[in-house]
């Protein structure tokens, strides 16, 4: 089955990102195709590489990056939601005149059309978040 995943909450505060990760990993292991993982609302905070949890805790951001590397996963962060919350890649930082950028490896920033497209192209769109 071709599956789209929507992550609507940030890391650590809500379990949604953990659940989305576990679901995505399990689906891939079962041989399903993940068309795209789209991060919206506070979900964009899953994509900042400045995340540094205590050593005995899981690193939610790195975990997504690694899964992306292993499976060539398309991890897309909504640009409008990301701009509101201070998540940007190098190009966007330059364009906005910011002195830093923080997008983690394996993620890309794009528009909301990518979410609608995931709904159209996938057999199921599965949402994680409140």
């Amino acid at each position, binding site marked *: 089955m071709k599956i789209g995943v929507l992550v609507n909450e940030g890391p650590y505060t809500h379990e949604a990102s953990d659940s989305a990760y576990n679901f995505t990993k399990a689906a891939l292991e079962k041989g399903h195709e993940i068309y795209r993982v789209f991060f919206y609302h506070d979900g964009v905070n899953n994509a900042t590489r400045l995340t540094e949890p205590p050593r005995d805790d899981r690193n939610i951001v790195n975990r997504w990056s690694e899964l992306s590397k292993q499976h060539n996963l398309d991890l897309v962060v909504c640009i409008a939601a990301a701009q509101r919350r201070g998540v940007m890649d190098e190009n966007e930082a330059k364009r906005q005149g910011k002195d830093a950028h923080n997008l983690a490896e394996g993620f890309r920033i794009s528009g909301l059309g990518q979410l609608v497209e995931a709904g159209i192209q996938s057999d199921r769109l599965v*949402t994680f978040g409140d």
Partner: protein
Amino acid sequence: MSDQEMDMEEGGVVKQFMFVNRKAPYGTIYALEGLEVVLISAAFEQDVSMAFIDDGVYELKKGQDTKALGQKNFSPTYRALEGYDIEKLYVEKESMAVRGLTVEDFAVDVTVLDHAEMAAKMAEQDVLISF
């Protein structure tokens, strides 16, 4: 898969998209950012509808004034949806009743469905996105 999807020969797939609005308009960002997705979806020529349940029914309330909140009043956007061919707005009867709202309180024309009818409408959809 909906019938429309099978009928499409070119120009891509048309699916039934329902955006489910469950939150009051200003306490969280979900209503505003949800509306942004709805507007984008119009560009994809999909069969789009919106459902308003729980506190989501407050999103449609007439006469919103957000000055004291220091937030933008985005309620006029609901009236603009018609211009994007988004005309199917379903409101759950029970959610209105427990909040003392009638259709007179809303800024737009809506279809009122009871709990069971709303569930049936949801079951027809290809894609449900809930905010």
